[in-house]
């Protein structure tokens, strides 16, 4: 159980390794899905996609300040329904950035495999 119980834990939030027994399948919605499988691309186990990554909200928040109640509600609705999608996230990750570590970019055959993996989870999502 996490926190005060207000957060619903579902099968996407947890990976359980039991002491003995058969293997467990991991949900592709778990934030560690890629990091657990590609330690040489993500040596620090950086988080993958999860459903609650919102877009950079700076513009929306600035507008909010001067809105009446109805517009504010609308804006809130807009924000809630504009989280980063899985395809957007993995697309973002694949691009080169000077600020990023180089492992994912230089991963060679492992990178190929990772891209196939990305594609597979995005098309079934």
């Amino acid at each position: 159980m996490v926190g005060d119980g207000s957060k619903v834990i579902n099968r996407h939030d947890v990976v359980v390794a039991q002491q003995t027994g058969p293997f467990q399948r991991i949900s592709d919605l778990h934030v560690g899905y890629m990091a657990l499988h590609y330690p040489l691309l993500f040596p620090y186990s950086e988080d993958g996609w999860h459903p609650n990554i919102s877009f950079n909200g700076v513009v929306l928040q600035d507008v909010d300040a001067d809105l009446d109640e109805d517009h504010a509600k609308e804006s809130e609705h807009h924000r809630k329904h504009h989280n980063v999608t899985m395809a957007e996230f993995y697309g973002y990750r694949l691009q080169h950035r000077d600020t990023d570590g180089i492992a994912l970019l230089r991963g060679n055959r492992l990178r190929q495999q990772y891209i196939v993996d990305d594609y597979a989870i995005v098309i079934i999502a």
Partner: protein
Amino acid sequence: MLLSLLATPQELEVLLTNKEKSAVKFSDQIHMYNSVLAFTSLGAKVDESITRGTRPYSFRIQGELYHKIRSLCHAKGQRPQFAQLYIHDIESEHQNRHVVMPLFDPTTFDQLLNMMYNINPYVKMFKMARDMMATKGASTDLKLGLIAS
């Protein structure tokens, strides 16, 4: 704002960018090194016909693809694999992995394994599980849950 990926640890960066023989060889075998260091294994039908031979490497699968995690302890008579290797005691660990992959360069492999022990948060969790099993005895039914924050 999405967080950027942390700077690649130096030992790995050298292996990925250096033009020396051992580094170039590592680059060719990175998918094999990764599969030994990974916590999960791949469930998928990999199309072997296209990966063999001298053609450029290509990773093709058919049907479903998923990741799976094994139990913390390996079954009797079987070799520990994947995350089970991080649970296993350290001395036999290097030996275990060399047995798994005799093609590996031992120096390169030890460097990567040390890197994992130094920086990887999942390795720390599996080590904690190992310590708990050692103190509580193997009869305890221990589960390791990796909960998304």
